[in-house]
């Protein structure tokens, strides 16, 4: 589709806004000023003051000399940005993609929108009348490119540049209309290049050498030979469903119905595109202006309405309907391609996997994702490092689990110190005391020496013994270090079955 852009230039953005707030100011010349290097400098000027020869950047004392009746107000830093942002959101009624053009403009990507107003003229006229009736002094340009629209808005005679006519439309305009900085624009003017048409015939490398890369880029962008991108103030979610409610909604049951309806629509929409949901957000707009949000996430792309509903159901109690909710919006924040596989009659593995992924989603939604672990073998001898957490649920082990050495069924996360009596070094102990209880050792196996992995952690090696006491209980003990280096410490590290 051919792209069309509209740029709006607010000539007196801040002062118009002041006039809107204080209607009595509309007929008076006034400026907004801020201190700069010990003087008050004009930051914004209204149309009446401007017609009297006052301009931005002048010192207030000089202005007062020109126009003694001039009113001066304090300029607040960042006002125009805030105003533009609010106006951009207001402009979303004309197109979903609205971007800021600091310091005093807006860019609207109107592709595919004007026909809703009948024609481009009617569209532009609607924007113009609405904004001027609010008291803003604006100029509008419309063209195939942002650059051309910007140029005609500031310097052109006709607001609309017909499709593919930007070369002709830009020809009579001054080079400053190309969004150049003042230094370059002045230099062009000084060299007698008063019109953009003068630049068309010039060799490109000469232009680049004399005026910099920027001039060429701007020229190309204005003529549509180079793409230009804008950042919308509110990014458009491609998968979104909204449900306005006639009556404000206050009960959990009604919210359930709303979620079900939205999910049904969203999943049908996703199904057509072959996508599945990974992350979704439900926003509930309350009639008192408050916004309530609940979000869900899944382990695997899914468009199973029942399952997704169950995930939302767990979060419904956290919504506070208060006076009532008037609008629900459900967005798919994250989607993934999802292949629908043909179901086999006898082979149930695929279905099982989906069911388990859904179970884990529900558990993760209730108790948190961190609680769920799946372990895979890791190639380390140290018992604490012999396994690792799998990063995804589907991950399968790269190596096999080792069973060549005995390992306990219960392993203490932190080995607990014990007191032992050992007949001679490197022999298993005769007895040990753990938590104040004496265990006489009847049978023992070992030692199995496991060295510390010095590249991971410094420490002593461990000599592991499997022992069995007189009651038949089996333990996994270890001695840390050599006897010759003093009195080594003994620890209990696990319980055998």
């Amino acid at each position: 589709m051919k792209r069309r852009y509209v740029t709006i230039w607010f000539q007196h953005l801040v002062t118009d806004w002041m006039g809107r707030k204080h209607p009595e100011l509309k007929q008076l010349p006034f400026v907004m000023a801020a201190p700069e290097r010990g003087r008050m400098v004009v930051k914004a000027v209204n149309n009446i003051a401007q017609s009297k020869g006052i301009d931005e950047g002048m010192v207030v004392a000089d202005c007062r000399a020109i126009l003694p009746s001039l009113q001066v107000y304090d300029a607040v830093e960042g006002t125009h940005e805030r105003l533009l942002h609010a106006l951009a959101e207001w402009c979303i009624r004309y197109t979903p993609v609205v971007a800021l053009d600091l310091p005093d403009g807006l860019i609207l990507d109107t592709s595919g929108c004007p026909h809703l107003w009948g024609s481009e003229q009617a569209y532009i006229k609607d924007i113009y009348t609405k904004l001027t009736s609010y008291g803003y002094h604006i100029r509008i340009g419309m063209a195939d490119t942002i650059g051309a629209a910007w140029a005609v808005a500031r310097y052109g005679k006709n607001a609309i540049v017909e499709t593919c006519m930007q070369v002709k439309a830009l020809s009579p305009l001054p080079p400053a209309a190309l969004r150049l900085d003042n230094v370059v624009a002045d230099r062009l003017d000084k060299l007698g290049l008063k019109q953009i048409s003068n630049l068309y015939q010039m060799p490109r490398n000469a232009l680049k050498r004399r005026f910099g890369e920027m001039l060429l880029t701007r020229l190309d962008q204005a003529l549509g030979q180079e793409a230009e991108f804008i950042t919308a103030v509110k990014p458009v979610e491609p998968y979104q469903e909204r449900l306005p409610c006639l009556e404000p909604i206050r009960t959990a049951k009604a919210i359930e119905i709303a979620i079900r309806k939205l999910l049904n629509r969203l999943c049908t929409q996703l199904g057509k595109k072959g996508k599945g949901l990974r992350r979704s957000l439900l926003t509930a707009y309350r009639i008192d202006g408050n916004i309530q949000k609940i979000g869900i996430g899944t382990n695997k792309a899914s468009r199973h309405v029942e399952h997704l509903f169950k995930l939302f159901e767990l979060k419904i109690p956290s919504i506070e309907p208060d006076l009532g909710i008037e609008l629900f919006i459900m967005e798919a924040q994250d989607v993934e391609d999802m292949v629908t596989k043909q179901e086999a009659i006898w082979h149930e593995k695929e279905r099982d996997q989906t069911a388990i992924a859904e179970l884990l989603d529900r558990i993760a939604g209730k108790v948190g994702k961190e609680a769920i672990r799946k372990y895979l073998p890791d190639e380390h001898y140290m018992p604490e490092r012999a396994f690792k957490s799998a990063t995804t649920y589907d991950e399968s082990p790269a190596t096999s689990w080792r069973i060549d050495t005995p390992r306990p069924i219960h392993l203490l996360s932190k080995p607990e110190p014990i007191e032992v009596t050992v007949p001679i070094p490197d022999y298993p102990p005769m007895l040990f005391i753990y938590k104040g209880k004496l265990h006489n050792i009847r049978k023992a196996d070992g030692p199995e020496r496991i060295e510390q992995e010095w590249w991971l952690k410094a420490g002593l090696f461990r000599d592991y013994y499997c022992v069995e006491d007189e009651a038949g209980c089996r333990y996994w003990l270890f001695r840390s270090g050599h006897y010759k280096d003093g009195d080594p410490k003994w620890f209990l590290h696990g319980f055998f079955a």
Partner: protein
Amino acid sequence: MQGTSKYEIIQQLQKEVLALQGHRKAQAVPKESIGLDMILKAFPENSFPIAVHEFLSNNSENAAATNGFISGLLSKLLPSYGVIVWVSMQQLTYPVGLKWFSLHPDRIVFINLTNSKQVLWTIEEALKCTSVAAVVGELSELSFKQSRRLQLAVEASHVTGFIHRHNPTSENTVACVTRWKIQPVASITEQGLPGLGFPRWKVQLLKVRNGQPATWEIEWSAGNFHVREQQSLSTTIYKIKTG
């Protein structure tokens, strides 16, 4: 009705009663491989019931023995595929150690939680999911009401549940079909060789609905259970009514 004897009628009725009580046989498991023939005799219809089983342990050693026995049951009595959900408050189970009981640790999804309410919710939710092979839950307290919820979930989904209660304040009545106690006993090495033998437990089946409580000494060796000696409790303990 000519050909049917009184015995057959009673057998038939008993089957119907069992079905009403939610008893369900385990799917066809090759009997030879289990090594638990003696144990299966304690259960109704000589088959391990798909139900919620309760295990009690009162110290760390018994807890380890119980988890070892459960791992053995999981690997021997249930199909060798499918996901096992293992819910616990503080995870002591060492994944590498499970492999010793022929159980692939990567089949298990461990869920570590902080409070018992969440544990119960997760166990119930997992038991409701028909695609899960089995659910193991470790907690300490289980009330009758809670256990009945779990049992009802199992009866709908036919997933076996193992509830391991560690250090319960009281051994209260619960709706589980069986109650077990596993204690480690001294291992026996062949011909008195030095060193440790295979894991050996005193397995007490204290309660079993429609079955015969009993005690065995069971050894886990060569990837299988071996019942070493049997001593029926039925002479000493009369059937304890469960549930």
